[in-house]
């Protein structure tokens, strides 16, 4: 399939809900005191605000917190997403989960469980911690560079296999034979790290402790370049907004051309969905965006590898509408969550929706459905084995495209 821009195709919007916003000094402009941040009420109110604003996806950052005078605490991302599951009905919940210093078996079970508590609205933002602090916390040797990518890839492969290790319908509840499970539909995964794996290798036997996730496979989200394959959503950054569209188009071309970020399964255009990353500061509360940013920066500078949009809501609408012509989705990082979310909800998302730039929000829809991905059969079942043979024979792309076509 072609990686060319697809004009007129609506996209989706994600919002990062971490802390009080993406700016390190955001807590100083929050509508609540610091000691009211780390609780369930805050998660409930922010995720419901994002859902009612019409965001398709909420993401939950994890890992290190800033040092110095700013927010020094963070609740576990996967638990925040799990808490949000029963209180929401349409927004997709994507926590960041580390792959370097965690046990892959636990990670797989936790994410599958998140899929159950959210009714199939879960995804996984793959993180590969590159910090010496996180290594020291768990007494492991510090990994960096290419080793991080290898560790991430191994952890993702373990989860992918474990999620398939119970075929659909493995719970049979057959009273006549006394069998609760059909053991023929359960599979050992026998994962072994490759010979060139950095650090101590490991194996995972399986099967999973929990049945197949509701979505079969949770969509896997990763920063461009982290995972060589098997990724469903690629996050793309650029130094400035004006460079972002070109960068997104470049990643699309790489996907279509068999470059470094090709997805294994059929996605929007025969590969992974491409999502642009954008920091956002808006005019608000009678102040200009640049004025607000200067005020925040005076407390703490905001280093970010993402493009930063600073302007009015109307300008942002135009910018996002144009970017969505090339990007499958955009993830917004609001400078101050309480402030930017209000402006986005009132002025930005309604106008984008009016222009037809956004996909409809599906009540009870799954993350895979949002991405236009079919629900795959288990690789361990008879049908899964046939599909793998077909892919090996070069039939996978055509079969995948047909499935996507039939869904749209």
């Amino acid at each position, binding site marked *: 399939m072609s990686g060319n821009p697809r004009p007129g195709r609506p996209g989706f919007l994600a919002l990062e809900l971490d802390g009080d916003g993406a700016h390190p000094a955001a807590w100083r402009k929050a509508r*609540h005191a610091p000691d009211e941040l780390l*609780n369930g009420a805050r998660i409930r109110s922010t995720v419901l605000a994002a859902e009612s604003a019409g965001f398709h996806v909420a993401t939950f950052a994890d890992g290190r917190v800033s040092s110095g005078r700013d927010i020094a605490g963070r609740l576990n991302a996967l638990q925040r997403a799990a808490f949000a*599951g029963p209180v929401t009905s349409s927004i997709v919940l994507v926590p960041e989960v580390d792959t370097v210093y965690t046990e892959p078996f636990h990670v797989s079970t*936790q994410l599958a469980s998140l899929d159950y*508590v959210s009714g199939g609205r879960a995804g996984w933002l793959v993180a590969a911690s590159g910090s010496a*602090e996180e290594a020291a916390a768990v007494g492991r040797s510090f990994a960096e560079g290419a080793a991080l990518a290898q560790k991430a890839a191994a952890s993702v492969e373990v989860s992918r296999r474990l999620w398939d290790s119970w075929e659909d319908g493995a719970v049979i509840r057959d009273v006549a034979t006394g069998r609760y499970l059909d053991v023929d539909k359960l599979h050992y995964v026998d994962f072994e790290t490759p010979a060139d794996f950095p650090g101590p290798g490991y194996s995972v036997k399986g099967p999973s402790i929990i049945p197949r996730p509701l979505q079969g496979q949770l969509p896997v989200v990763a920063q461009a370049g982290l995972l060589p394959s098997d990724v469903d959503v690629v996050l793309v950054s650029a130094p400035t907004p004006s460079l972002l569209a070109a960068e997104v188009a470049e990643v699309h071309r790489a996907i279509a051309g068999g470059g470094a970020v090709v997805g294994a399964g059929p996605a929007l255009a025969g590969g992974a969905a491409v999502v642009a990353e954008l920091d956002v500061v808006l005019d608000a509360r009678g102040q200009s965006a640049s004025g607000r940013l200067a005020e925040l920066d005076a407390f703490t500078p905001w280093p970010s590898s993402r493009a930063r949009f600073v302007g009015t809501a109307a300008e942002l609408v135009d910018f996002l509408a144009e970017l969505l012509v090339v990007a499958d989705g955009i993830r917004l990082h609001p400078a101050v969550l309480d402030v930017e979310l209000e402006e986005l909800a009132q002025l930005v998302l309604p106008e984008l929706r009016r222009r037809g730039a956004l996909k409809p929000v599906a009540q009870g829809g799954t993350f895979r459905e949002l991405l236009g991905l079919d629900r795959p059969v288990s690789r361990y079942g008879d049908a899964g084995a046939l599909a793998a043979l077909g892919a090996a024979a070069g039939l996978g792309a055509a079969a995948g495209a047909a499935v996507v076509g039939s869904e749209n």
Partner: protein
Amino acid sequence: MTQHNRAKFQPSGKIQFGIFFQGVNSGTVWKASESGSQTDFESFRRIAQTAERGLFAAFFLGEGLRLREHLGRPHALDVAGRPDAQTTLAALAAVTSNIGLVATQNTTYNDPADLAHRLASLDLLSGGRAAWNVVTTDNAWTGANFRRGGYLDHADRYVHAEAFVETAKRIWDSWEDGAVSSSVSADSWAVPSHVRSVHHSGQHYSVDVTPRLPRSAQYRPVLFQAGDSPEGRDFAARQADVIFSAHPKFDDAVEFRADIVSRSLAAGRGANDVQIMPASEFILAATDEEARELKEWVRSLQIGPQQAVAYLEQFWGRELSAYDPDGPLPEIDPVVEETSETRGSGFHGAKARQLAEQWRSEAKEKGLSIRQFVSSRTSRVDATFTGSYTAVADTLAEYARVGAVDGFNISPWLVPTGLDDIVNHLVPELQERGVYPTEYAGSTLRENLGLATPVRSESLVPVQL
């Protein structure tokens, strides 16, 4: 309390209930038309909200680390497929408001800094309702699912667990009260010098961390412990708030209480500091007669003919499908020396031949078929309270009066409706007798269990944030 009072056990005169959603083993009936999903969140929500309606102190989840096996393949006959405990409890925190949320988590395949952080996170998310049931695992069969593998000697398991728990407590102690500012105009988000780092360097792991979370409304997660060996009991007496015990029978419970009180005192704690909640099962009806009939029906569904034979196969180590479940025990001998752990810890390490011999003569003597014999072994006779609501309420009132236990951790035989009878009929009977709470004492688990706030364990080195 004064030192004098602390040394003497004082019955509270009350009992509490917990609910243990098992998700494995034959105790949960899956063959009835009311039997619901073991995995879908709706089952967990339904049962947790029912428990909360009945003022239960705690909702308790086990931990699955490896799918149980039978003769080298996954075990097919019992319920299976349980979700991750903390993920499920985090979701339940959003749809409940008072009930405690207890996660069973092992100390072998977790890292102290990571597990302590996730438990603290659950504690904050739930407004101070989290608890950790500390378990140890040492076998290589379970370790095959983990990077760490089966690296722990059985003899070392409590030494290792205790170092782990001590480290977790230090992590939970690391933020002083008021460490997080109460105003957006504060100079910094956290008060400098109120956050301390934690260092531990030991045989099995090292930890060097600046913890990322403040204390919860209940200070830190409540600790449960379930080990029953002398080492396990001493470990609980030193570290735990509540013991999930295996001694629900009245005389055993009284004896176990006395033992735990003396171990607690020896460990320098008060006589009432460690609470006891035995595992239990309730089969209730309007009359004793109906309850007995119900029990027969429940037992027939818990242990069907296939399960009865499979139970023996696990100890014999060979296929026995040629044997009639309604006939006598097999005359042939087991092919294994020791039973393996692959069907869960209850099956581990028995001397197979000796056991087979003993069982054969016992079944013969009592005239029991395979099915009857296995049912008698697996039904946890001691842990089951069968009878009318009033009769069982009278029995439990006696436990409360003498302080034999602080409560019962109930495994419902039906999911998710298995607590309905207890909440609708037994709880009011107990309340009438004045032995059961009529409201939640507070919003945290520690308050609802009546546990004292922990004392800061030691001074730590402040870090510059």
